[in-house]
């Protein structure tokens, strides 16, 4: 780690289990911020609740460690208030696809220039390993001792169907690939989803690092891979995890961001506009 990336560290030592994928994501983010030459004070991250959310205490940027399932609307509010900030939302798959699923769906429709990072380990880690909406059918956990009946949620397909303009999946352990995708996600002007497969060493003994290493492959290893074809991307979204599970950028398009379509923000961010000096006399006149 270079001295430059150290600026993104707080004084607190992360408390994640040894071997947790969160360590790799943490390192990746520090590298990404450094390589993108971002200033700490211009980064604002909204975190959910879970092991992933604890990242809030380790990254030295403006952070908001909010409620379980709710980083997305907080990030949305931050971005509308100051669209010059680099805004991220970060949370787990239980947080984002369980508790927070409504915000996930509606946020994508808006295309705010926010990067949403989902730490996908198919369980609720911090509460000790219950199956999450990403758990495969039959997964046994303390709340589903006979195997979960539901099929897993497919966030990539949901994102594609719902007008997201940047849709990606990565694997925390493919460190360099993850950095490359995260950089592109943050640079993308519009809503970016990066669903990071991140093995939970302690509670998920099925979908281990080894399990995923056998299955993941990079989409852009194929020279024919394209990111401008939604139907092709949708086919890829339904691929795997057996026998192979694609990682990389499924789809990307340029569309005006939500903030670009707010004339109120065309000259200055909201927080740089003065709240003083507004007269409502003309409004009173309209009621006379």
């Amino acid at each position, binding site marked *: 780690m270079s001295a430059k990336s150290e600026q993104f560290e707080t004084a607190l030592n992360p408390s994640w289990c040894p071997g947790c994928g969160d360590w790799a994501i943490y390192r990746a983010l520090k590298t990404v911020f450094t390589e993108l030459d971002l200033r700490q004070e211009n*980064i604002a991250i909204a975190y959910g609740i879970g092991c992933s959310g604890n990242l809030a205490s380790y990254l030295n940027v403006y952070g*908001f460690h909010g409620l379980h399932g709710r980083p997305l609307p*907080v990030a949305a509010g931050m971005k509308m*208030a*100051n669209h010059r900030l680099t805004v991220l939302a970060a949370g787990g798959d239980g947080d984002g696809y369980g508790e927070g699923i409504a915000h996930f769906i509606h946020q994508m429709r808006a295309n705010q220039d926010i990067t949403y990072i989902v730490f996908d380990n198919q369980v609720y880690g911090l509460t000790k390993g219950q199956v999450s909406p990403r758990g495969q059918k039959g997964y046994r956990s303390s709340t589903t001792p006979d195997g979960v009946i539901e099929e897993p949620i497919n966030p990539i397909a949901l994102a594609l169907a719902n007008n997201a303009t940047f849709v990606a999946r990565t694997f925390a352990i493919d460190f360099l690939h993850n950095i490359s995708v995260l950089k592109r996600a943050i640079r993308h002007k519009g809503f970016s989803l990066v669903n990071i497969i991140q093995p939970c060493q302690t509670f998920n003994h099925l979908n281990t690092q080894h399990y995923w290493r056998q299955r993941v492959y990079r989409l852009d290893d194929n020279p024919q891979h394209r990111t401008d074809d939604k139907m092709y991307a949708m086919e890829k979204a339904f691929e795997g995890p057996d026998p192979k599970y694609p990682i990389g950028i499924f789809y990307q398009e340029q569309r005006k961001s939500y903030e670009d379509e707010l004339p109120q923000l065309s000259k200055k961010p909201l927080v740089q506009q003065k709240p003083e000096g507004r007269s409502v006399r003309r409004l009173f006149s309209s009621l*006379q």
Partner: protein
Amino acid sequence: MSMTKGRKQRKNKKLLLNWQIGGEAGFGITVAGQMFSRMCARAGYFTFDYSEYPSLIRGGHNTYQVAVGIAPVRAAYAAVDFLICLDQETWRKQQETLAYSAAVVYDSQYVKIPASVARRKKLTLYPAPLEDIARRYENPIMRNVVALGMAVQLLGLDFALLRSVVKTAFGDKGESVVDLNMQVAQAGAAVVGARRFRRFPAAKAKKRALMVIDGNTALSYGAIRGGVQFYAGYPMTPSSSILSTMAKNARHYGIVVKHAEDEISVINMGIGAGFAGARSMVATSGGGFALMSESLGLAGMTEVGVVMVDVQRPGPATGLPTWTGQGDLRFVLHTAQDDVPRIVLAPGDPEECFFLAAEALNLAEEYQTPVILLSDKLLAASASSVLPFDERRVKIRRGKLMKQSRLRAGAEFARYTDTADGISPRTIPGMRHGMFVANSDEHNVHGLVDETAAMRTLQHAKRLRKLATYAKTIPEQRCYGPRDAAVTFVGWGSTKGAMLEALEQMNRGRVKANFLHITHIHPFPIQSVARQLKHAKRIVGIEGNATGQLAGLLRERTGIAVNAMFLKHDGRPFYPSEILEFFQRYVSKK
């Protein structure tokens, strides 16, 4: 003119007419009512509008009432003395509210009024084939305009004034639409001919100076003047018009207005915007507020100021969506887990809505905590005529917002540093050397997770101390009426209007009454209220809920127990006449 259902009372000298139009939803009841109200206000008379409607888009039974006076009218009156019935249901439901010698304009094709009732109440009837007349102009929906024309003629009002309000209502649709409306109104006037029901004396207020404004509009304008920058909402009766008013004015005033997918998103967006440095407000009703509970705690814990408006309606659950009530007091005081510091304000009329909305935004930023504004359907949706508020009285205060120049490299900014008054200086994203984490977990002075006993004690006490600081600034609560009163009513919110009207009547008699109106609910203004009630002889709690929530709070905070309670929880407003009746019964008991 009598004030109660058919019984003769002392004449109310200021009230000229209590006018009402009723019909099916979709019959243009509201439009007609608003036009009549605005006409009277432009003529210089004072008006108070009150509307009732079920939770339907078509059908059902809607009424719009306008009380017209030569001095400010602050409440709806029960007894109607000019009724327009566009359907039979209006006659069926409203006949009991008719005063003696009232006038009834009605659609002769659809409404049958028994002669015996007309005789008993000495009614003057004005039947006309309203729908048929409107059909002549190919618009049966304009039956309401025919009736309006009849009303204007019967009351000797100025048709030029009617044209001016029609123009305001429909002017954007073109002059031909205005002309058509006037033709239809004149057709109604022609039916009346030379007959007159009542003539109004000369208006005391200057013509055209009065504006007709309801509580939601006043609250919205107060927020705009008070510098709201981010507003998020989700439609919920009776708060929805705040969202649409804000949306309508967003571009002009540079406000970002977001209609979000649910109330949880609404409040979290408001908090995110507030964290990033925007003055932030959200509004809803009880059910939406319930969804915001956990997030209210989040705002309190992360010390982000947001204004949260609850425009009450009766519950529980879906309750009575289009009716009024005051049942959420205890709810907003206590909701969210553990002790979350909050400020609760309750305006009682449109003017207080305006100024308290602006003040709420200031308090939210100064005390870095949620500020709750309680309103209700009666206040929100009842328009009354009033002189424009003096916006110069509104000043913007932003509290301990750090300046970039004071932030130094090296030292980590301690966002949650302990202070004597409990308020820590805050930075906003973008400020160099100002980074911190706003944490819903218990945290240290930098916002990083900290579960030690010492830090928990420090932070929790600090947050709560902010309220003690604020409590010292709470203004004196107002008591209306003579100091030396036999009965002191204590109430809050929209009850103010009916109480002030009733006080005018009560205090003409020998036995006097006064009214303590509490606008600053939490922290409770203990000293002010104790002072005001020190010499009270008998105290009556008056409020629109079943359990006397304010009376309970009063006792909890000051030890003062009310002697009696006058409670109403049927979804309808307090009427001055029923307060008067209660008072007369109460003082005749020893």
